[in-house]
């Protein structure tokens, strides 16, 4: 849907209200990922509520799933400080008529097969199925509760509560605002509201400034939250008027002057300058981006087999799930299971219990310098019957200088600096193969810190 420039409204609606077989349809897996296995069902509703408000509205509501905002959140979020646990339960009640039938579909209980449907009766009850397993949140009281949309006070018009929830979410202006801000943060590293999942809805509207005292300086009211409120609202308008299509928004942002700035800043840089989008801020590539960059730079794409797919994939960005590619250890096309190993090592996470980790550390550098999963790709004679970039250059008559240019362009997306060219040209070619010299040059380009970052 997204690839075809469909409406993000439709996409979100499908995820929030998805029903059916998780092994036949994609959308139910949004809920399958949110199931709190071995916890009370209320925790699944609450977790999914937080995911929906976070993913689609930019508001982490999990705080008030345990306690009222008052007395806790005043220094953090003015809007949430005025919400209650009861209001969270009422929001969570939108999900309380959901039936989830599931069973493990692998011996390690890592993959669940589920079927999701909706009842027409029931509500958010607070009774535990197993009193000995109260779950992670403090005891719930009262109920059963019926739905009230936390952000407007609106109750559902029909008994199809999840569809009603989806309708409220996608028609909320905050839905569009949160999306363009997420997109901006992805492209510029810093959101206009940052972090992008930390919206304070009481401090968004420039025409309706908050009057509550600011905890950091009680003589002043709370400031507006967006760094560029007018820009945020114009982007929101553009997204709505464009039918919630994503690609025009991407195009608008990447064609901006701010996006075109380099990572170098001629003046004295302070972290506050990040809010002015005065230079490009580096972002470490995700595991999938890093792998795809590596195989593209070295021209060492490997076919990947994926469960349930009848065609071959080559790029990690295409993988449908963190359990893929699912190939036999050392027997499949994915030689020695390099790909999953690589993606795990660089922090893909499991999209479930283990969060994505885009940090760097010395162990990752050891891996990148020394693991065959990386280094073999710079050996023309070791990989893919001589089709790697190094092998192709070695077989050509191209000059050393031109070869350095091509290796740098392929690896770092730019021509070499004078320093790089000079160092590479004076690098002693190992005896006897020029191929090894080329491989060493590309290994060095790959291991420049720059390779790990979008900047």
């Amino acid at each position: 849907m997204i690839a075809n420039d469909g409406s993000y409204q439709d996409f979100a609606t499908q995820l929030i209200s998805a029903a059916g077989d998780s092994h036949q349809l994609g959308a139910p897996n949004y809920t399958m990922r949110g199931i709190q296995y071995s916890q009370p069902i209320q925790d699944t509703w609450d977790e999914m509520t937080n995911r929906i408000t976070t993913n689609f509205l930019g508001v982490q509501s999990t705080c008030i799933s345990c306690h009222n905002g008052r007395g806790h959140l005043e220094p953090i979020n003015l809007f949430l400080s005025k919400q209650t646990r009861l209001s969270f339960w009422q929001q969570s009640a939108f999900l309380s008529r959901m039936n989830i039938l599931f069973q493990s579909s692998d011996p390690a209980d890592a993959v669940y097969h589920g079927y999701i449907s909706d009842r027409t009766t029931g509500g958010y009850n607070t009774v535990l199925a197993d009193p000995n397993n109260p779950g992670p949140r403090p005891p719930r009281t009262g109920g059963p509760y019926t739905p009230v949309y936390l952000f407007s006070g609106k109750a559902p018009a029909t008994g199809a509560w999840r569809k009603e929830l989806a309708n409220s979410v996608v028609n909320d202006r905050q839905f569009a605002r949160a999306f363009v801000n997420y997109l901006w943060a992805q492209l510029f590293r810093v959101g206009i509201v940052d972090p992008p999942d930390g919206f304070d809805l009481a401090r968004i509207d420039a025409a309706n400034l908050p009057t509550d005292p600011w905890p950091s300086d009680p003589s002043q009211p709370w400031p507006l939250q967006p760094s560029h409120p007018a820009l945020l609202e114009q982007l929101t308008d553009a997204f709505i008027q464009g039918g919630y299509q994503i690609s025009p928004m991407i195009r608008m942002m990447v064609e901006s002057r701010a996006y075109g700035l380099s990572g170098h800043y001629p003046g004295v840089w302070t972290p506050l300058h990040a809010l002015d989008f005065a230079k490009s801020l580096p972002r470490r590539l995700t595991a999938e981006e890093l792998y795809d960059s590596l195989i593209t730079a070295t021209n060492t794409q490997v076919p990947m087999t994926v469960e349930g797919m009848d065609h071959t994939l080559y790029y990690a960005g295409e993988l449908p799930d963190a359990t893929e590619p699912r190939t036999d250890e050392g027997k499949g096309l994915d030689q020695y299971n390099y790909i999953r190993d690589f993606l795990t090592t660089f922090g893909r996470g499991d999209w479930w219990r283990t969060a994505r980790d885009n940090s760097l550390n010395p162990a990752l550098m050891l891996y990148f310098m020394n693991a065959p999963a990386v280094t073999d790709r710079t050996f023309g004679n070791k990989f893919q019957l001589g089709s790697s970039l190094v092998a192709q250059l070695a077989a050509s008559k191209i000059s050393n200088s031109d070869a350095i240019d091509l290796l740098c362009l392929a690896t770092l997306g730019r021509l070499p600096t004078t320093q790089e060219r000079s160092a590479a040209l004076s690098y002693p070619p190992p005896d006897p193969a020029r191929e090894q010299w080329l491989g060493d040059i590309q290994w060095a380009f790959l291991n420049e810190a720059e390779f790990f970052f979008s900047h």
Partner: protein
Amino acid sequence: MGLGSFGVMAALPRPGEAQVLRHGVSPRGSADACIFINLAGAPSHVDTFDLKLDAYRPPSHVIGGTSAMAINATLFPKLAQATNDICLIRSMESIEEAHERGQFAVRTAHSSNPAFNGETPHIGAVVASEKGLGKFPPFLALNGSAGQGAAFLGGGYGPITTSGCGFPYFAHDFYGPASQARFTQKFNLLTAMDPSRTAPSDPSLSDAEAFYDTARQTMYDSTISDVFVCSGDDFARYGNTAVGQALLVARKAVQARNGVRFINVGHGNWDTHQQMYSRGYSFAGALNNIWDLANELDHGLGALIADLKSSGDLSRTMIVVMGEFGRTPGPLNGQQGRDHHKTAMCALLAGGGVAGGRVIGATDSVGRKVINPGWSANRSIYVQDIVATMYSALGIDWTTTISSTPSGRAFQYTPPINNGNYDIPAPVNEVFG
């Protein structure tokens, strides 16, 4: 194989003193390192380290140990011979009865809380950040993930994770005997080429350069790489199992004495709801009976204790063995297993100043609840108390609070115990000699 992190991080933010509050206790400082063996799934206390002689066990099983420290010698033949070196804590309770929440407490000394789980570091990361980073990775996770990383403490304090023997990335081993020289040549090329080294456009790039330099320093250093090289004889002595292999590497890491501080050794599948005494019984492709699991653990742990004692390293190395809760006492359930039970559990401690031959506390005759705490606080012992004991042994102030967290909420090394009384954790000093 997954990787965590290790090494010196010059740019790593350390909690500033102004953001750290300590209550000024006097840690014991009797240990340099801790080997923490996490028996995930929760072993039955009444069949392991709080053995009830009246409880069911196969008729062929032999009771060993001493009269004060009875041990099922069929399950734990080596430990039954090592009672002079181990201390058993039998007055423990858990506040949890579900695995994930119980495991979170074992890994972090904190109750699972959706708002803070992401920023709560593993106890091994706390140890690493307190003791500092040296030549060797300070926090190893062997035979499975530690389950939690360094969180806000910073990636450099997180675990390096490997199955055990055979961590291959300390060498650039592609050119035979010329490998080291060739690698040096290539690395010199890299340092000469990379403009980020001389003019980084952002701190994240200069951090990456620092990580490269640290990684480089660990290469071709046999005192590091040899830790992960294991011989066939070693395998046999430690049992030729995954946990045995992990315990062997743990021993070698400790004996190397070059910076390792906390080693998490995973040993899973102790969730024996059924056929717990059916030797060979597996569930989901993995052994899931106490007989085989205990034998695996005993084989490796017995060798570990003996080897560390022989080399003189046991006195400076604390070993902690525990799961997340106990199991239902009395007769086996209808499926010949035991279910989850939180009002009684147990732990085994050894080394690092721990007095061998000692038993702390007692449960009732069947092992249902604690009747004698056996320590100065005169209440049941919780995982937070065990962690405080470990921190004390390692010379760490267990009362430390760091306020500079991402959420702004204070992170307490050992927070009040969520048992209804909010008891303040304390070291169980009675375990020490």
